[in-house]
């Protein structure tokens, strides 16, 4: 099929960017969206134009590296699908497609479609862990965890840290991301000891990075490629409030 893609091109962090249109022939419906971009890049290289820079690594929907907004939707139109697993069969001949990077103050553009998401790392560094040194763990079966509880923790832990939730939110809020991590650890007995300090530290780090607040639009959940539930935002708020009320952050 034949398509036209409009792609955000930006030479560097401080350079102005703009949308550039490319016509592309012979797109195969079995191609993934990123393979379509590979294909486009090969044609650009042949013409002596610099290829479009975009992030991807595992290309199987788990590493969280790929990060494209397609026609205004982070990861594109398919539900619970990262852009690397989106296939061209969901587009039609003659379609015009608009491709942009994640847009958020806390995710500055580095080049074309590549953004800097180190703010998410820094939130995790603030408290997204259980402080247990290697070698000091008790036998794994010493602390029973009910199946429902473990499954619930796993639902939260499934977050791939791509940042689509931020890109989807009109406030550029990272609360689904932070909520997932806070909840994952707060749902497990191993995470109890530090749960107050963790909730406060991670929320404060999130605010310090310049992410916005949640106004309950649920755009994040709709865009999340792993279907992380907004219930975890409520869970995080509860953890945060509890920690504040008990008056101890560390």
């Amino acid at each position, binding site marked *: 099929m034949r398509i036209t893609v409009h792609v955000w091109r930006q*030479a*560097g962090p401080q350079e102005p960017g703009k949308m550039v249109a490319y016509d592309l022939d012979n797109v195969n419906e079995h*191609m*993934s969206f990123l*393979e379509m971009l*590979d294909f486009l890049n*090969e044609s650009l*290289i042949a013409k*002596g*134009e*610099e*290829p479009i*820079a975009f992030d991807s*690594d*595992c*290309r*199987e*929907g*788990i*590493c*969280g*590296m790929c990060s494209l907004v397609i026609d205004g939707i982070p990861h594109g139109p398919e539900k619970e699908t990262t852009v690397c*697993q*989106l*296939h061209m069969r969901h587009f039609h001949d003659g379609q015009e497609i608009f491709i942009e990077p994640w847009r958020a103050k806390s995710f500055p553009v*580095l*080049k074309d479609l*590549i953004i*800097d*998401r*180190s703010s998410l*790392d820094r939130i*995790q*560094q*603030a408290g*997204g*862990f*259980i402080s*247990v*040194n*290697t*070698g*000091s*763990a*008790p036998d*794994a*079966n010493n602390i*029973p*965890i*009910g*199946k429902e509880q*473990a499954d619930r923790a*796993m639902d939260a*832990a*499934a977050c791939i*840290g791509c940042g689509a939730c931020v890109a989807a939110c009109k406030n550029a809020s990272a609360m689904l991301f932070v909520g997932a991590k806070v909840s*994952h650890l707060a749902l*497990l007995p*191993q*995470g109890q000891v530090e749960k107050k300090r963790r909730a406060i530290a991670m929320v404060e780090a999130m605010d310090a990075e310049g992410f916005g607040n949640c106004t309950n639009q649920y755009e994040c959940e709709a865009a999340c490629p792993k279907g992380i539930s907004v219930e975890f935002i409520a869970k995080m708020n509860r953890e945060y409030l509890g920690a504040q009320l008990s008056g101890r952050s560390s």
Partner: protein
Amino acid sequence: MNSVNKTLDSKVPGGPIEKQWELYREKMKLVAPSNRRKYKILVVGSGLAGASAASTLAELGYEVECFCFQDSPRRAHSIAAQGGINAAKNYQNDGDSIWRLFYDTVKGGDYRSREANVHRLSEISLQIIDQATAMGVPFAREYGGTLANRSFGGAQVSRTFYARGQTGQQLLLGCYAGLNRQIASGQVKMHNRTEMLDLVVVDGLARGIITRDLVTGEIQRHAGHAVVLATGGYVNVFFLSTNAMGSNVTASWRAHKRGAFFANPCFTQIHPTCIPQSGEFQSKLTLMSESLRNDGRVWVPIKPGDTRPPNEIPEQERDYYLERIYPSFGNLVPRDVASRAAKRVCDEGRGVGPLVGGERRGVYLDFKDAIQRHGKKVIEDRYGNLFEMYERITGESPYEVPMRIYPAPHYSMGGLWVDYGLMSNLEGLHVIGEANFSDHGANRLGASALMQGLADGYFILPNTIGNYLASKKPENISTDHPEFEKVENEVRAYIEKLLSINGDRSVDSFHMELGRILWNKCGMSRNKEGLLEALQEIPKLRKEFWENVRVLGEGETLNQSLEKAGRVADFLEFAELMCRDALEREESCGGHFREEYQTEEGEALRRDDVFSYVAAWEFTGVGVEPILHKENLTFENVALAVRSYK
């Protein structure tokens, strides 16, 4: 190069095998807690091995710097492991033990691994599960709250722990959390989007690395008292593999060129259950967890060229070939056996699926019986996420039509040679995880890669590196040493060369061509004639690359073509070594199947009398024949036997 130690001493401690690791630790030298901060350790890679090592070394008090080329350490390719992690916990009371895991792994590796390492791995497997659980890894549980297990890839006991189909992700996030804690405390300095481009050797010791900042293009020097490579495997040399787009051999290869021996490069694992290629444009192949073989039945039509839709082919016209040939293991035979069997039936013209390049390369993995037996709900609980993934990629629902699968390059058993302390022959250079040749011999069993990465990073290296450092004074090391300048200049010249060629062909086009040569001639089966051809074709392609590659853009910016070009340039050198190793090993074992060496029934024919050794290659120059060093393997605990799964 004079200072490289050329004798291959594995340094396995004496004594009975079940006591060796204990004895090692009793006798090893220690670095006093107050002295540890005087040693700096550079850890390259942040997957399971790298992140667990970096955080554990930092906990011990060493100064650590860690490097990854991804935008966050959490994205290292360990994250994509689906099925699970083995441990000899025997929670299921089904007869498992450390000994049995050891035995299975040595046998599964087709007797080409080092017994002492494998036994240690089995011992440590228990602690890994404890550690990961304490870090908050949400392993699957039974209703009573205890950990759940499943049997996996050729094991007759249930020893595999799992977190849905995302075990690698959850284990890596556990390591990443530990690493974050150390980054926050300042004990680890993390360098994201930073790629190691060379190793610096000073007076025979690995003393540092040269990196490129992938955002700014800046070339940087880093000095340390030891260098740890945790840089993963090299099967992206095939172009199409299940590895991530960025997975590469560069760090290992550059270390090899600086004197580290490369062991068993021809041992690559071709995973049997991947989604078949759908066209020439494809950039990677996707693995479907091996756990699917627990309930799926593998078959092809009995008649060659039978293109009826699968559901119209009656039972009596189907060949459930794994169940037929291997009645006792059936669909659960190990990976190398399952892969070769799939290739064989496709070679016979019985492959299924669309024509790609004039051939049908696929076999069915059918869940109809399992759905009838257990109900759709149970199957959905077990494999729902995998079925969805399959449907997203192929547009077909495995609840209604059988999946189509075909083998794909997945893992490298070969890697840099290391001794029992995980140090290469190049003093100070340690290699962990998939990057070393270590524990899997000629074939890796399912759910063993995560185990090995974490054993190396959490429990083995933090001990053995102390033993090494204790013998060295924590002297001041500086990147001002002339050797750093020399290597940095070489790296700069190399980058300038790549950017200045400005030929006609893209980097990918070379990579694809290299991949085709290797897949056809050094893939699932190999023969002398093909390997000799490949050894002609690869240098020719490499020559063309250096004359005709087109790398646009500049060195001082984010430049993905340049990143790829460097990696492919290294693959073009490495591929030759892989073929040489495959040519030299005149036997069939594990993932290495030489057509000349097979039984009458077409099974692998191992030649223990001549080839019970690790082939460790010494670099002597690009395109120049390397020197072979051998580490002889002895099997005192597991008797050498023909690996039969019939």
